[in-house]
């Protein structure tokens, strides 16, 4: 075990530490926040001080408290979206791979067409029709993102289902459920876990981007992307206010990317090249 731990490179350790810290903030953030997320405690854009570590925002609210509280929305929405996209993409991908034939053709064509449109554009069309709310955000992003998961799950399952042990199980007369849960899923896990990190990164940046455009998470909830947007003007006066939430977004993304990079290089897969 210790030799295994030693084999983890420094960059991966750094990534793991960043991800763990963010998860702690995600779970305990609102409890740690010294002030309420919408509590006005001073003048707008007060610079950082001993009392307010990251200064105050455009309405005179404590930046540090809002960063801590905002983690819940920023990380929560993207985590939920990635989880749902995996719950849709993996079964669909496995079914397409195992059944083959017209099932595979129909599913793959639908996915190909959806993937022909840039994700941001599809999301904007849906948000125009349904308006922006947390459930709409989560399900829109989950559905759009599940196309990527579907593709990977399908390729991985196709690779596994022709191997001897899967063939043997099929000849033994095992059911489809057994094949998926006992033969394919355990062996497909390593690439899928790395993919989960990448998909989370993507959805996290995507949610933050939508919020930055004013179309994501809506007030009164604090979230990092929206905080960048709200404080953007301060940069023109040389104030750092919008850089704190932007840096929080960047830090978590770098952390997850470092971990994914290590998982991919140690797992021997070559999926890492594209976003």
């Amino acid at each position, binding site marked *: 075990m210790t030799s295994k731990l030693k084999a983890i490179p420094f*960059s991966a350790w750094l990534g793991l530490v960043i991800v763990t810290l963010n998860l702690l903030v995600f779970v305990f953030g609102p409890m740690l926040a010294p002030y309420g997320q919408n509590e006005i405690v001073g003048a707008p854009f007060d610079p950082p001080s001993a009392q307010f570590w990251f200064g105050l925002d455009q309405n005179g609210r404590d930046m540090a408290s809002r960063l801590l509280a905002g983690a819940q929305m920023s990380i929560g929405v993207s985590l939920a979206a990635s989880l749902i996209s995996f719950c849709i993409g993996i079964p669909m991908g496995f079914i397409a791979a195992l059944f083959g034939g017209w099932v595979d053709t129909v599913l793959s064509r639908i996915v190909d*067409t*959806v993937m*022909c*449109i*840039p*994700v*941001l*554009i*599809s999301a*904007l*069309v*849906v*948000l*125009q*029709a*349904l*308006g922006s709310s947390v459930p709409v955000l989560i399900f829109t992003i989950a559905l759009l993102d599940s196309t990527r998961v579907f593709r990977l799950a399908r390729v991985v399952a196709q690779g596994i289902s022709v191997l001897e042990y899967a063939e043997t199980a099929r000849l033994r007369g095992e059911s489809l459920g057994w094949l998926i849960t006992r033969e394919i899923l355990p062996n497909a896990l390593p690439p899928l876990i790395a993919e989960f990190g990448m998909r989370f*990164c993507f959805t996290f*940046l995507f949610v*933050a*981007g939508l919020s*930055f*455009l*004013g*179309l994501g998470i809506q007030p009164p909830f604090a979230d990092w992307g929206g905080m*960048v947007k709200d404080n*953007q003007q301060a*940069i*023109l*006066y*040389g104030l*750092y206010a*919008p*850089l704190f939430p*932007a*840096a929080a*977004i*960047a830090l978590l*993304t*770098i952390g997850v*990317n*470092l971990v994914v*990079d290590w998982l991919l290089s140690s797992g021997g897969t*070559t999926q890492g*090249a*594209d*976003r």
Partner: protein
Amino acid sequence: MIQLILKRVALGILTLLLVSALIFAGTQLLPGDVASAILGQNATPESLAALRQDLGLDLPAWQRYLSWLHGFVTGDLGMSLANRQPVADLLWPRFGNTMALAAYAAVVSVPIAVLLGLAAAVRRGSLFDRTINIVALAFVSLPEYFLGLLLILFLSVQFNLLPSLADTYAGMSFPDWLRATTLPALTLVLVTVAQMMRMTRTAVLSVMDQAYVETAFLKGLRTRRVVLRHALPNAAAPIVNVVAFNVAYLITGVVLVEAIFNYNGLGRFMVDAVAKRDLPLVQAAAMVFGAAYVILNSIADIVAIALNPRLRHPR
């Protein structure tokens, strides 16, 4: 080869049709319809029915789709709901602005990224390769607005070199335009160079690992000749795909960058339309973005077919 290219063109047209159907379907998700959205509180059953007939909403969906598609092909993009102006007049100038910004960024970033990726692949494992990889990984992870805000803070607020807002207007002189759009273009360059460089490196490395490249080295050829004459022609097709992928990214990545620098492009225009829930505007902008994306990918595939030595000299 001609046959392959024609096949690809036909596939591209089919994709465009499917994309248009999907976008139309997406805009029909709204419970209720546009007429009640326009009239809001003032809706009476009579005024609703009149407006529905006026907008053609009493027709079945497939007929509305066909007439929308017909209008799109003939250049009639409908009327904006917010200010009753023709969408085409509002949309095309902004599309031009967006393409100009994307082109500016692409012209700078593509050569830099391909050269860096090539250099890193040739010196695999060297200090240069490792450094550039870590830097690229960091830049890939940074959101556009973080980079954009940093650039504004340093280049325009502290040293006052470039304007922080990308104000452009019709009839602007080219040097003025360059000055106004350099910061947004630079932001896009930083994001895409990192991405493209990483992908170019992977593409070249997969070729460098093949037996014929090793043979060329064992024949005693210089590295330069092996890379340029043996490896590069076979890596060209994947590199073209990498470039296309990133130029396609530029087209949508531009949406965020336009919001940071308040640039008058199609992205910001579409975001405003979504916020105002202006259906015809969103529909048209989505179709233009979608079409640009599909056309670009088709061109890339055709170039890749044309560049592939194995397809050029069929056995």
